[in-house]
């Protein structure tokens, strides 16, 4: 059963300009950060969104829990349409949806102790206070590997290493016993040796607490370690979506193929081949007409400049948005 379902979700941000510019130009440009995305995440699944910087993946993650309000589209959480909920109703649901941010140096309040940061949600949701709060927090600190928890409870974020801070951020997300967690590049600021620990911790916690993750990353290697399904995002849209193994062994979108061939493997016998695509990602203000990938695509034909390809199921559970998906495979 789908825990999260998103239908044609869009988020446009107005381009910030000076007052004079606005007077003279008279129209507002929009950054189309998320431009029509539909998918659902099953209960207990790890759904990875992979894309390069600026593709809209972080905005998408925040939209799913309404940390950013959508411009249009619908979001269903456990069958409830949350796009229409008032803030009071939303707050009650918030307990069940949490987020882990990318930068553990910025996401923890430097003037609060770890125990208070982690326990804050318990107070806001009137679940526990005082001694009872402390008991719950100590338990969760132990679970995320900040052990002995009594030692970490009264520490400030600056006394912790990057990996320990990210553990505290995970503890904060878990303390309310949520169902759904958005993990936005949770390891990209960490060193590889620490990254492996955090990824393993997240996998263990997922099993233990029956969690569902929307895992956002720019690193296909990390996605291939974590994911059940992977969606590849380009300029605000999904271009391909498939179960992990299918996506990695049988990619059908030219962009996915390019990403896979451009990754430097940590193996001296596996060298980067020719990169089939050219140019750079266009600005999300001026999205190319037709298929947004066509200016860089080696397969592009007339239809690609004219008509936007839809995300179509070309094999069971394998969706591709490309006019030539058959040819690419």
């Amino acid at each position: 059963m789908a825990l999260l379902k998103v239908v044609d979700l869009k988020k446009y941000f107005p381009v910030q300009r000076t007052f004079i510019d606005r007077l003279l130009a008279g129209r507002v440009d929009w950054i189309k950060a998320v431009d029509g995305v539909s998918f659902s995440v099953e209960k207990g699944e790890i759904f990875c969104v992979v894309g390069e910087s600026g593709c809209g993946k972080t905005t998408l993650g925040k939209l799913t829990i309404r940390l950013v309000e959508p411009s249009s589209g619908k979001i269903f959480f456990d069958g409830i349409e949350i796009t229409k909920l008032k803030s009071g109703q939303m707050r009650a649901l918030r307990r069940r949806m949490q987020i882990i941010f990318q930068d553990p140096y910025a996401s923890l309040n430097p003037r609060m102790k770890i125990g208070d940061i982690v326990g804050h949600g318990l107070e806001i949701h009137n679940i526990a206070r005082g001694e009872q709060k402390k008991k719950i927090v100590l338990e969760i600190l132990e679970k995320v590997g900040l052990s002995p928890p009594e030692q970490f409870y009264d520490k400030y974020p600056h006394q912790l290493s990057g990996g320990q801070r990210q553990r505290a951020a995970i503890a904060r997300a878990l303390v309310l016993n949520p169902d759904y967690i958005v993990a936005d590049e949770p390891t990209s600021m960490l060193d590889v040796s620490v990254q492996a620990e955090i990824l393993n911790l997240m996998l263990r916690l997922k099993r233990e607490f029956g969690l569902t993750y929307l895992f956002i990353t720019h690193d296909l290697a990390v996605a291939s370690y974590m994911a059940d399904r992977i969606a590849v995002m380009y300029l605000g849209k999904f271009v391909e979506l498939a179960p992990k193994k299918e996506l990695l062994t049988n990619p059908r979108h030219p962009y996915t193929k390019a990403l896979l061939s451009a990754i430097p493997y940590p193996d001296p016998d596996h060298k980067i081949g020719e990169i089939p695509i050219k140019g750079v990602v266009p600005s999300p203000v001026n999205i190319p007409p037709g298929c947004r990938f066509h200016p860089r695509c080696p397969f592009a034909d007339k239809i690609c400049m004219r008509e936007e390809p839809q995300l179509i199921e070309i094999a069971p559970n394998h969706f591709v948005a490309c006019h030539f998906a058959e040819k690419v495979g």
Partner: protein
Amino acid sequence: MKDVVLSIRGLKVYYKTRRGLVKAVDNVDLDVYEGEILGLVGESGCGKTTLGLSIMRLLPSNAIIAGGQILFKGKDILKIPDEEMRMIRGKDISMIFQDPMTSLDPLMKIGDHVIETYLSHMPVKVDEAKGKTMELLEKLGIEKERVDDYPHQFSGGMRQRVVIATAIALHPAVIIADEPTTALDVVTQAQILQTLRRLRDELGSSVILITHNLGIVAQISDRVAVMYAGKIVEVGTVKEIFMDPLHPYTKGLINAVPKVSPEGGELSSIPGSPPDLINPPSGCRFHPRCPYAKEICSREEPSKKIIDGRIVYCHAL
């Protein structure tokens, strides 16, 4: 065996901070051979950038060189006067920095960055320098019509090509590339890496590639030096390091890198985190995190061992 172009011996670079002396590079020996790409890998704060900056003598003002030598063409470049060092920089040894968004002057035209390099080191006129610049930019995949553009008109990858152009303009013997692709997307990164490899083949320069990304090192290095907490722990050929790492830290690092693979398989991690370099652990600096640590490891610093041509610092071997 090729000749050694650059030889670092017993180098110690410390930073003065309010909390105390940070021993960023502590007694490092390293040789760079002619025409090789030497990958220098390690996690953040291990001292790899400091090592690169000391070769360029571009260390920040709170750094002190507490000992050691950097021998280039038989001369200790730590001892020569500033004026002489300025002539070496760019001409004999040059550097590509991490962030192409900040390493170009936003008020200078693209071409002028390269032209300046020629003018300051060669007896050429502006026109001639501009001609050379356009030729070089074209070789790096930038249309020569764009020589009068400004940095903001270029994408990140194009800017990094300009930075590379300034670094290679005078065919230096040694190019230090400090995380040259970290700020770029993977597709651009792959293109820049291919460019670097091609340039090494064409110019015969030695490249010291500083990075935390083991994938990049595996792709284009000939040899690899692994750094941990201010020290070199292992140096070997790229195959030796990746296929048969000897030092426990190198092993841990290689097993911790996720690979793109549909099968998966458990990633192993290194427990703990890198130490504070104000108070580094006694003995071997890796011993608190090392699964093979013995009693001697906390007491005595491991000395250099050469095993089948490979350099390792470890008591357990």
